[in-house]
């Protein structure tokens, strides 16, 4: 079937009922899980870390579910459908980043921490300033990322389910994530992420098989088609383009001389930032020990790697089967491909999966933000590490989750016409420039101290935010008539040439941490290094799973 009539159908359909029912089915299932999680779990470690009884493969699926956002699923497929190879190159960093997690961060963190990344820092450094800064950085990363996800959800619904209002969708997503986190805690969040990962992987596998079967399972036919994608040139004449050739996004051109350097800079933020993302790091506290944490990263790497390789099939499939000229918006490439190859039902399934994806990611962000606020800021900074009443920390976390959710709904509705795509880049940049340096230095450098940690967190955070604000992501002069969602927030020529600040902000974060350390001496911190080293490398004294 040719795609054109299908597109007309998509534009005229008021509400896609099949998609709506499938999505409601997912919601019902997750609510049942939340109900059982709420009944089963009691106690602090049950709420924040699912009792540390999640198994390796379960946690691997949950990490994958926590990590693979709608931006990867729809965004990368769309980028490849419109720009070919450069989208594929872009997807690589999202997997390779897990080597940093596996080799450097996951096991020491699981061995030496309790609920948050700040636990590891607070071991030998002065707990209150370090936790306060770490909590600030965690909340910044989580809320930025969350707003980007929720605005994305609203934008997605306009495309997939025209007829359902933006405010309704954003509020619905927000209320559901609050319910999962407030009532079900980490256990419910984990299972929402596991189910989402299974749905996303099966949808992607099925769609990839449909694409390959379209080319009679012949890779040479597939790649020949990719080498001849019909696109309209600047002069309006249709011509074929080789979509396997690099350079359409990150190529060096007169208009964009910084393209390749921007990609390197993004790579630095991804490779360093993934190992500093609070919602990924908290997942390692849900397993019984460091060995299981390691196994779970390997599971996650297998799933995430397969997912991105298949995403390229979806992107190239959309480019060759639908052709870019027949896709109205980049993000619609994968869902429209599903419609063209698998019909209305499969389109509905893929749309429901996209929403499940958003829900799982925002639930993970909410629980990591509320854990950090309750555990780091409330209990340890304000109350000097003591609960005044039993169960207080969990109660504070629940209230925080509610507040964070409500603020996110409000901001996502307020910001619906604003281009917030840069917030995801900002979240990764802060994670790489503020969180990663202090985690790595506190585990591996004996001399590291409180001043260094506070300086590293502070400057890393500040440098990322300032550089993003003066970058072309936020600053730029638009031609009159640019759509609101694509407009630059500040109408002024950009003062920093790269969209991704990582190449400057990550070295700055490390430098600030090192200089801050060298300026002061902290014998107490150095003395405790032996203990941290033994804990991190042997698992002696690590937090254990709670018995059934």
């Amino acid at each position, binding site marked *: 079937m040719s795609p054109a009539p299908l597109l007309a159908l998509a534009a005229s359909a008021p509400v896609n009922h099949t998609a709506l029912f499938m999505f409601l089915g997912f919601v019902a299932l997750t609510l049942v899980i939340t109900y059982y999680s709420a009944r089963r779990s009691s106690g602090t470690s049950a709420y924040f870390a699912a009792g540390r009884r999640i198994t390796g493969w379960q946690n691997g699926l949950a990490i994958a579910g926590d990590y693979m956002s709608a931006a990867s699923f729809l965004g990368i497929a769309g980028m490849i459908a419109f720009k070919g*190879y450069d989208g*594929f*190159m872009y997807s*690589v*960093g999202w*997997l*390779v980043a*897990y*080597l*940093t997690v*596996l*080799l*450097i961060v996951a*096991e020491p963190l699981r061995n030496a921490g*309790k609920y948050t990344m700040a636990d590891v820092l607070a071991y030998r450094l002065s707990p209150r300033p370090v936790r306060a800064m770490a909590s600030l950085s965690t909340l910044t990363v989580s809320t930025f990322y969350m707003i980007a996800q929720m605005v994305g959800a609203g934008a997605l619904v306009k495309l997939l389910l025209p007829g359902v209002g933006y405010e309704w969708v954003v509020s619905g997503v927000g209320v559901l994530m609050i319910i999962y986190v407030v009532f079900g805690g980490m256990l419910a969040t984990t299972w929402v992420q596991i189910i989402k990962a299974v749905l996303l992987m099966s949808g992607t596998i099925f769609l990839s098989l449909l694409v390959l079967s379209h080319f009679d399972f012949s*890779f*040479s036919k597939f*790649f*020949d088609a990719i*080498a001849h994608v019909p696109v309209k040139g600047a002069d309006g004449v249709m011509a074929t383009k080789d979509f*396997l*050739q*690099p*350079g359409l996004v*990150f*190529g*060096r051109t007169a208009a964009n001389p910084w*393209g*390749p*350097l921007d*990609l*390197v800079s993004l*790579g630095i933020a991804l*490779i360093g930032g993934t190992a500093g993302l609070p919602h990924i790091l908290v997942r390692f506290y849900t397993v019984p*020990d460091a*060995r299981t944490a*390691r*196994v779970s*990263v*390997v599971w996650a*790497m*297998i799933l995430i*790697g397969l997912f*991105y*390789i298949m995403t390229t099939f979806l992107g190239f499939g959309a480019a060759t089967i639908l052709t870019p000229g027949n896709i109205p918006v980049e993000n619609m490439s994968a869902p429209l491909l599903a419609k063209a190859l698998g019909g209305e039902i499969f389109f509905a399934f893929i749309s429901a999966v996209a929403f499940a994806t958003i829900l799982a990611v925002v639930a993970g962000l909410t629980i990591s933000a509320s854990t950090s606020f309750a555990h780091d800021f409330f209990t340890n900074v304000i109350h000097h590490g003591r609960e005044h009443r039993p169960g207080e920390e969990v109660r504070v976390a629940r209230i925080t989750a509610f507040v964070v959710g409500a603020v996110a709904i409000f901001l996502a509705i307020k910001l619906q016409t604003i281009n917030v795509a840069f917030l995801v880049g900002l979240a990764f940049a802060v994670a790489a420039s503020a969180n990663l340096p202090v985690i790595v230095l506190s585990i591996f450098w004996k001399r590291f101290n409180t001043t260094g940690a506070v300086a590293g967190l502070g400057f890393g955070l500040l440098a990322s935010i300032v550089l993003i604000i003066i970058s072309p992501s936020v600053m730029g002069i638009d031609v009159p008539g640019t759509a609101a969602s694509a407009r630059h927030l500040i109408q002024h020529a950009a003062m920093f040439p790269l969209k991704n600040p990582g190449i400057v902000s990550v070295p700055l974060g490390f430098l600030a941490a090192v200089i801050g350390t060298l300026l002061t001496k902290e014998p107490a911190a150095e003395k405790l290094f*032996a*203990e941290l*080293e*033994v*804990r991190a*490398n*042997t*698992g*002696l*004294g*690590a*937090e*254990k799973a709670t018995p059934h």
Partner: protein
Amino acid sequence: MSSPDPLPSDPTPESAAPTDIAPIGRAGAKPPHERTASEEAGAINWDAIDADPDFRGLLRDKARFIIPATVFFLAYYFALPILVGWFPDLMKHRVGSVNVAYLFALSEFFMAWIVAGFYVVKAAGWDKTAAALLARFNH
């Protein structure tokens, strides 16, 4: 298979023990598996373990794998955007029905899996070393 937390020690007293009556209930020291992290902090001689030659050897072994592996994967990863960005003609060279750029990007996925595989094999050995070390310190 030893774990970081051995079972509670046999309550039967040794022949030369100061008392022949095993502690009842919660009066005695908690067995290691019941200690919380903060109680454990005082019960373990961290400095002695840290200074132990076997532990230093374990750290050296880990560094000897992790540092080169990290340098390797960073170099391999950043080679892709650098080669594509600054040497596009080399990367556009066709190989069969694909090109060098595509094969290189695809190889990144296998590189990540292979490095992870090597790490898991190495880490299983480190687990054994750590367990043996802790057993020597009665933990």
